[in-house]
């Protein structure tokens, strides 16, 4: 019997292997190859052009700053929201559903929605004008207001993508048997101590998944930034887009893409190492 059924698992995963191979692995190899080729043969020319570009250092700085501000804020917010949602007795599904609505909206649409709120003649300015706080249309998203622009992007990103962290953390919280918190409470742990000494350590595997996912996506941030700031706020993925479409230079665009991938891989490796749960500490 085992001999006859041994091919079945392979047959079952074959479609996904083919799918990944054709649509992920092949383009990946092609992109890497493209980034290292200029004229004829192996060359670092694309990378030299990328690094020499005026916007390159700015794009690196902006992307990292956004990631370093947005991701920790999202984790803290999601932890708070998840804790509250799991404490709800009634209406929990409804609250969770409302909180996750932004996940169903494309990032470009989300960016445009926030543009409608924050642009010169947007809802924010209308409200501020009505309250007498500003004299007329005021720009928040221009090159002259880099701090306001940065916070506008942070705000839009928080609104758009905190829910994915929330969903992962709620699933993780539900996996922790309630007896652990009860035992901690009986033995004298106050709510904050229970959270830091029991809940957080037991939630580590879910936190790791959420952080990897959110950080990788944060390094790829593009549409929201593009909608709100255009090239006033250069980011790595945006530069790749500009080199691909405006400059028609696929080699430099590929170099940017490979750079983003390398940064994402490094971040993932870091999380896997720092937040690993030793097998003997699993429940």
């Amino acid at each position, binding site marked *: 019997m085992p001999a006859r059924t041994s091919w079945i698992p392979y047959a079952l995963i074959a479609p996904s292997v083919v799918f990944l191979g054709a649509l992920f692995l092949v383009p990946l190899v092609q992109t890497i190859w493209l980034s290292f080729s200029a004229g004829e043969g192996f060359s670092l020319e694309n990378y030299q052009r990328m690094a020499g570009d005026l916007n390159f250092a700015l794009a690196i700085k902006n992307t990292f700053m956004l990631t370093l501000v947005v991701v920790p804020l999202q984790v803290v917010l999601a932890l708070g929201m998840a804790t509250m949602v799991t404490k709800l007795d009634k209406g929990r599904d409804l609250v969770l559903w409302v909180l996750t609505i932004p996940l169903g909206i494309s990032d470009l649409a989300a960016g445009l929605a926030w543009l409608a709120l924050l642009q010169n003649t947007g809802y924010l300015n209308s409200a501020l004008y009505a309250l007498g706080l500003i004299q007329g249309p005021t720009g928040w998203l221009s090159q002259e207001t880099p701090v306001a622009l940065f916070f506008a992007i942070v705000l839009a990103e928080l609104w758009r993508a905190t829910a994915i962290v929330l969903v992962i953390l709620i699933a993780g919280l539900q996996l922790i048997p309630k007896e652990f918190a009860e035992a901690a409470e009986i033995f004298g742990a106050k709510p904050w101590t229970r959270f830091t000494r029991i809940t957080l350590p037991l939630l580590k595997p879910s936190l790791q998944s959420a952080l990897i996912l959110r950080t990788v996506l944060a390094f790829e941030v593009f549409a929201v930034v593009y909608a709100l700031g255009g090239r006033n706020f250069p980011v790595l993925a945006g530069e790749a887009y500009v080199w691909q479409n405006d400059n028609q230079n696929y080699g430099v665009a590929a170099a940017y893409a490979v750079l983003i991938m390398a940064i994402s891989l490094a971040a993932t490796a870091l999380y896997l190492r720092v937040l690993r749960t030793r097998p003997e*500490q699993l429940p």
Partner: protein
Amino acid sequence: MADIVIDRVVKEFGSFQALQEVSLTVNDGEFVALLGPSGCGKTTLLRIIAGLETQTSGRVVIGGQDVSDLAPRKRGLAMVFQNYAVFPHMTVFENVAFGLRMQKAPQAEVKRKVERAAALLHIESYLDRYPAKLSGGQRQRVAVARALAVEPAVLLMDEPLSNLDALLRLEMRTELKAVLREAGTTTIYVTHDQTEAMGLADRIAVMYGGKIEQIGAPLEIYATPATRFVGGFIGSPPMNFIKVRCSHGTARIGDAALPCPTAAENLELGLRGEDASLGPSGSGIPFDVRVVEPMGSHLLLTGAIDGQLARIVAPPTAIVNAGERVGLTVDPARVTWIDGTTGRALARA
């Protein structure tokens, strides 16, 4: 050390009444078992004492202090959970030390008390291990050590042995009794296993349908059950209940005559299987044997008295065959009379 007074505690979940005005006093240093089938409210009562559940009405007083509205951590108690709830991300040492750490005890005291609790439960050699590396029985020991390390005034145990296999359960039961006697802690122990309750407790509170049916010492509950439920729930085989007619203070079954109380309309004779001794047919209460099961220490006879199912325990050497009719001699002082209408025991005639 502290006594526990449970004063008319009621718990409702929506329209379902899980506890109906339960009152119970546990003396300082006493071991009381809450015994009953699943759904009888015993775990709910324990969780209310712990503060993990809030009573709908009534009070819980521990050591003279009304703790009804206090958070669990302010009640001065420790608890052992059914699934142990040993923290997987901490070593055995840190698990046992958890309560002391929360009290901000100095390191030297933590070490001393953890080592003493560990020695009591024989887990000294696993102190640096993580719980995942331990067997169920070892985790159970860690959970008990964690509870004893804080030297609690009150120890609550929720079915602590039910996840262990039968042999380990027997071993842990014996050990728990010795350890807890030494600690002298006031203990409330929830179980559905009558042998655990009988073996461990100073007193047993038998619960059924959200009420305490009877409170008493194990042998008292065994010998003189207050209700038909208690007689049927305690003892293996359970107490037999035979419908009889009582006229002029005497109940006649076959050739046997027993003095009976006349107060009840429907009278039932409650008879423990081992309180009847076997004689030849024609003497005493006629018993038609249908099945004979040799259990090693005794013979278990299943049959009928006056057409009603009964189980009798006979000495292992007795010679009885299925299909035979034998006579049972019963000591009138050892039977229980039950009012068949109310299910309550009647005073002896």
